[in-house]
């Protein structure tokens, strides 16, 4: 997008018209920006448990994993965008929580923030322990990743990332204990 305006050669009325146009554009931009965030606050997750073993995944567990994994990614996105650790309390535990907290702390220091937008996760359960106390999943995640420094966009990319995840049941939800990106499965 490029914009060229020669205000000194135009009549005054034309300048005002252009100014109105810009104001409208800014308003539309801001409005669409806030709508974008509302739309981005969700994460699409599809879960396949057909290959999970040795224990079969019960339908109630499947629903719980789906619900909690989606919530975890939304929380992570919120934490990394607004540089706050509060959303990490609950959906994450162990090493995953540790490095996410470190990331947020370092982002606070460096002024960097990350936005995960238009998330789509193809999640597959690959291992479910005999006693049901741990599940390993593979996620082929697709999203728009934006990195900003002090509000200035320095990176914007549509990425596909493969994640290996360990989830364990907590009191009333499944939590992510390990979240590790890999080149391929």
């Amino acid at each position, binding site marked *: *997008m490029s914009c060229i305006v020669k*205000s000194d050669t135009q009549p005054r009325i034309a300048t005002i018209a252009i100014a109105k146009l810009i104001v409208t554009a800014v308003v539309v931009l801001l409005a669409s920006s806030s709508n974008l965030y509302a739309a981005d606050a969700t994460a699409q997750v599809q879960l396949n448990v057909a290959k999970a073993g040795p224990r079969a995944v019960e339908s109630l567990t499947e629903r719980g994993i789906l619900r909690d994994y989606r919530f975890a990614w939304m929380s992570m996105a919120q934490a990394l965008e607004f540089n706050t650790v509060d959303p990490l309390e609950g959906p994450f535990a162990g090493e995953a929580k540790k*490095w996410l907290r470190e990331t947020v702390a370092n982002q606070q220091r460096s002024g*960097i923030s990350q936005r995960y937008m238009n998330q789509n996760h193809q999640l597959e359960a690959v291992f479910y322990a005999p006693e049901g106390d741990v599940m390993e999943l593979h996620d082929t995640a697709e999203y728009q990743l934006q990195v900003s420094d002090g509000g200035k966009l*320095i990176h914007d990319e549509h990425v596909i990332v493969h994640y290996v995840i360990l989830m364990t049941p907590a009191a009333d939800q499944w939590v992510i204990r390990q979240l590790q990106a890999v080149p391929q499965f």
Partner: protein
Amino acid sequence: MRCRFRMCGAMSLIGAWAFAACLVAVSSAQEIKVPASVTAGDESVISTTGSGSATFYLVGPGVSRKSEVSLGQEIPLRAQDLRNAGSYMAIVCSGTCQSTGFYVSATKPASLAFLVHPSRVPVGQSDAVSGVAFPFDQFRNLVLAPQTINFQLTAGNSALLSREVRSQDGVAWFRTTSGKSAGLMQVNAALEGITAKRAVQQVASDPCNLRITGQRVATGIVVQTEPVHDCAGNPVPDGTIVTFTATEASGKNTVDAPIKKGIARAQMAASGAVLVSAASGVVIGNDVRIEAQR
């Protein structure tokens, strides 16, 4: 190279509020090259081309670093910034921003997360004991490269199981039958000198061959079991309930009695001919016929 953006052309028409930013794709002089593979905890470098100063960003799991660098020189990556396995992004901005990603993989295993179930198991139960092991490196990254993990189960001096399992997707597991003798079962998982130890208490299974005797007393009858064992000969733990049922002409009378010192004993009110039976769990013992006082 991933992105190529420059914020440019902020223009003002009627005061300070009329700014609009536009993104213009521009060609760039600098290029960055990342290592093909990086192992967690190792130092590395990123090479750049071009000249002049630039801002370097490293974004990855646990890392969000920003520093000033000189283009054309190598950018050192500290070992402490590359401890977590996962996806990293290196971004260099000098007017334009260029970025490239790379992965850090786990280093060699340093510990095993070993989950064993249950903590207490009756003897002789098929597929009753299971274990799951995850190898982790010294930075607590899951080691996804296949590893051979040796599971060993011992009870006393006898080996119950020794099985080598190749990990797949960072996990190895086993499931087996519990032993024949009550007592402590040691469950070990070993990998290249790393051993994780767990213990499972094996207890007697359900009573087997429940046998009872009885006699008449002034107030009715007294019945008791012989020492109660499971089918492998292990004494059934004290506290296990034995149910005695006395059937006489006037009806049935039932008493639950816990095993104490291997024997369950009950005194029951009765008169006349009484048929007494005993049961514990799903096991039924013999019947005894006792002539109580009328």
